[in-house]
């Protein structure tokens, strides 16, 4: 079942001469994880804002959109740097996580249940009484993610969710994303953590200057030689070292792939 449909979407920010997104069509089904990759300025963050209905709209970002954006269910967006998303109105982590659900007008018991469940899932229960202003970047990123999940979205939109996390925290987030998809959530994640993709996502969309350059299964996209063009985002570290060694295809993407090829 399609949770997100973008049909020939073009979007231009106010006072910008060039469109940030050009003629983007994308369908994301419930239970599916789609990664957006691309160099800085490729449009991945804008695509998430547009999909969330925040650009244009929501009083956040103006601009002009043509084409159609359809969402089946509530969408929630995690912004790339957690400091931009903290409410600034909560004295404890628990209240920070409750901020979104409270704005949805839910009864107190439902908020409480959802907040506790989200804190557990993101493994930050131990921080529940801390002042959000005293958290490290990685701790805050997980708290903000808990707040997003507490709104029980059907569509989860994540912008660089692991950028501030240590490897253990990043692995937890990628595992969690998989679990949420298995429960039926549709997930779209903009990321520069290409190494995580082969084991974490179903499909990859490569954006370049606001257009879809290539999309397909993770394997199809990440094995492409064109990902190594100077301004392209590159593939995995393993694909990179294989290429640098000048060895023949098919290109391995992961350590197990490489080991079975080179042993």
């Amino acid at each position, binding site marked *: 079942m399609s949770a997100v449909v973008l049909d020939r979407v073009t979007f231009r920010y106010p006072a910008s001469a060039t469109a940030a997104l050009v003629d983007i069509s994308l369908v994301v089904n419930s239970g599916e994880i789609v990664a957006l990759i691309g160099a800085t300025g490729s449009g991945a963050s804008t695509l998430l804002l547009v999909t969330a209905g925040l650009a244009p709209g929501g009083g956040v970002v103006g601009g002009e959109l043509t084409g159609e954006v359809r969402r089946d269910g509530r969408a929630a967006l995690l912004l790339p740097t957690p400091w931009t998303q903290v409410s600034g109105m909560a004295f404890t982590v628990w209240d920070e996580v409750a901020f979104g659900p409270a704005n949805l007008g839910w009864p107190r018991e439902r908020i409480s249940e959802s907040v506790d469940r989200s804190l557990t899932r993101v493994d930050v229960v131990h921080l529940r009484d801390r002042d959000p202003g005293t958290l490290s970047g990685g701790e805050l990123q997980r708290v903000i993610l808990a707040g997003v999940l507490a709104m029980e979205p059907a569509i989860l939109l994540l912008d660089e969710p692991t950028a*501030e996390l240590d490897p253990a925290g990043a692995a937890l987030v990628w595992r969690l994303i998989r679990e949420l998809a298995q429960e039926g959530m549709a997930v779209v994640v903009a990321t520069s953590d290409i190494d995580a993709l082969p084991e974490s996502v179903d499909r990859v969309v490569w954006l370049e200057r606001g257009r879809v350059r290539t999309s397909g299964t993770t394997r199809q996209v990440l094995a492409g030689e064109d990902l190594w063009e100077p301004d392209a985002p590159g593939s995995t570290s393993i694909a990179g070292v294989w290429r640098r060694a000048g060895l023949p295809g098919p290109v391995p993407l992961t350590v197990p792939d490489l080991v079975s090829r080179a042993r």
Partner: protein
Amino acid sequence: MTPALWIDDVSFAYGDRPALEGVRFELAPGERAALLGHNGAGKSTLLRLVTGLVKPASGTVWVGDWDTRAKSPAELARRVGSLFQHADQQLFARTVRDDVAFGPRVTGVRAGDAAGRVERALAALDLEAVAGQHPYDLPPPLRKLAALAGALALEPALLVLDEPTAGLDRRARRLVTDALSARAEHGVALLVITHDLAFAAETLDRGLVLERGHLVLDAGLASVLVDAPRLGRLGLAPPPLARASTALGLPGLPVRERDVAAALVTRCSA
């Protein structure tokens, strides 16, 4: 030779919450150290101590022959260039070029000399094309590069950087690696907090690991990166090339792309 940085038995606490306890290490000119550890292990606190934003509760932080207790952060900026995790909060001028020029100007660099430093820093990170733009018109990754250019423009003896590659794309990460390597070759010491161990492998060569405020490991970075059990206990994991090197038993357990590629060529042609 005087170390670029000497952390001499340093402890620090936020109220009654200890952040660092009895940390000691030295960094020689040109040394390239990664500072690794869990979120909340004390890494950012150490950076604040080195830049003089906070002073040690006990012990001494020496930047060259300066005791940070006797110097203001502005004075220390003549020797320490820094990039904080909230990099975009370091920007405040109306153009990227003015922002990069701020450090040299307030630390008393002569105007002609300062202009050269600014242009060298902008060039090193390929920012010339956006130098006339307002920093907040740039996407966050370019703002981060602009903040890093500001640190480079100080041409300090020591660079302390908090997650310089977080959120950067492949091209920008390579620019950072090249710029930092070039500075280190000219004797600048690097102390870099990073979770990006693939970047660390390409750029740095010493590994300092903090755990709950204690320095628990100080060793060659390559040996740290292939030690999966040890990294695992610290909430870290070897980057892909280190894992590949270990899994294949490549000679010398290389971790840099160039060295792993060469070992693969030998392996696959055997």
